């Protein structure tokens, strides 16, 4: 009898653990052009692995605005929630990353609507508009290390709990 109870309890535990895993296995998509998985939940923390637009990540844990995820390459670490969406992002037809099987509600099509084709069309109709400087602006990129150094040297100290 005792062993039967143990067995029963054991199987309940297994079932609970299995369902907990299923519930916890939230998958999200990267909705920024260049995402990063970081060691700690902070923008000042080093990068573990880069993420690409549309990459699917498995969410392991959520801490305030940060999510602990496993990326497509198998590496785990922290991503800010503003870089992720619950929607699946399907690349346009012809791309290798075409995702299928999601319903319309869950799917966002990459490059749908206002995209580089529309920008090119806009550019051809507005000859004076110059994207060269916009491209140059986008090249200004500040690393996490440079940000941390900037704050430190300027003696700018984030309030308690304020570290991004």
């Amino acid at each position, binding site marked *: 009898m005792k062993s039967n109870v143990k067995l029963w309890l054991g199987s309940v535990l297994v079932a609970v653990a299995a369902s907990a895993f299923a519930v916890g296995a939230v998958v999200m998509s990267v*909705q*920024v*052009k*260049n*995402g990063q998985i970081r060691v700690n939940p902070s*923008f*000042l923390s080093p990068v573990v692995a880069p993420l690409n*637009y549309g990459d699917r990540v498995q969410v392991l844990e959520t801490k305030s605005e940060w999510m602990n995820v496993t990326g497509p390459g198998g590496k785990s670490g922290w991503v*800010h929630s*503003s*870089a992720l969406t619950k*929607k699946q992002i399907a690349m*346009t*037809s*012809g791309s290798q990353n075409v995702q299928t099987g999601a319903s*319309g*509600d869950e799917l*966002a*099509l*990459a*490059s*749908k*609507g*206002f*995209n*580089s*084709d*529309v*920008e090119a*069309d*806009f550019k051809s*109709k*507005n000859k*004076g*508009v*110059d*994207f060269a*400087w*916009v491209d*140059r*602006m*986008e090249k*200004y*990129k*500040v690393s996490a290390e*440079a*940000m941390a150094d*900037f*704050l430190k*040297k*300027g*003696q*700018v*100290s*984030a*309030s308690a709990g*304020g570290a*991004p």
Partner: protein
Amino acid sequence: MTANSPLAVFLRRLLVAVGGLAITGLIGCSTVAKFTTDIGQGAGVITKQQAESINKSAQAVEKTFQDITPEQEYYIGRSVAATVLVTYKPYDNQKENAYLNLLGQTLSQFGAKPETYGGYHFVLLDTDEVNAFAAPGGLVMISRGMVRLCKNENELAAVLAHEIGHIEKQHGLKAIKKGRLTSALTTLAMETGKNLGGSDLAQVTEAFEGSITDITGTMMNKGYARTTEFQADNSAVAILKKSGYEPAALVGMLQEMQKRWVPNGPGFGHTHPEPSLRIAEIQKAIGATAMAPEPPARIKRFKEAMAGV
């Protein structure tokens, strides 16, 4: 039902009307469609199948509108910035722009939306006019005249934080005229999964072009509503507090602007509410705190970086 049958025309009109209502934000799109189709069915004007079809399409339009994706926001922002840079030429100075990005991008990480599709990027504008612009998605342009008003790094941080506030609250996108996107987004909803060609591309580009005009017109000429500017100030206060800069610097900056305030004058006089009104709003949130002196290292680097501005 043929494409141009009276019923088809009616359905299309209904769909556009419903989309328009949803986009005015008065009421949920699918809610209106459901209500309308219930009446239609009750009166025997349309069949159950037709009602379902309308409801389904209305939901598609509603969702599509809500889902201007970060990628689309990015493309809108690029064209807005490119258009602003026709009127205001960039100040091509590596040292100043590098410092501006160091400060601005660091601040953006303390905002409510630290990650955008293309990230935050900053550039100086070669004009004496006192002004700054935030294009959707994260492109910030700030005039030399504006930077010259900043007495220290903390005040420049306050200006940049205000612009970051406009971006995280998507004020640019909200300046797009209601209904502007309805037809284009309906086309897109129908053309799911296909690459746009010919007339569809032309239609979407037209909506895109109109959106850019709406946004740049608001930013450069008309100005945002007073409450919109107050919202961006609120975001700025939050960003400054969280990062360790003093929100009181925003008040200091606005006091400088008040001294130069010319109602309907060029630059901020034309597009922003009177600084004293903004100061009163900010002080409701932070009180009348005086700013502590900055550490010498910070004073030094600000002076060095901005000496030529």
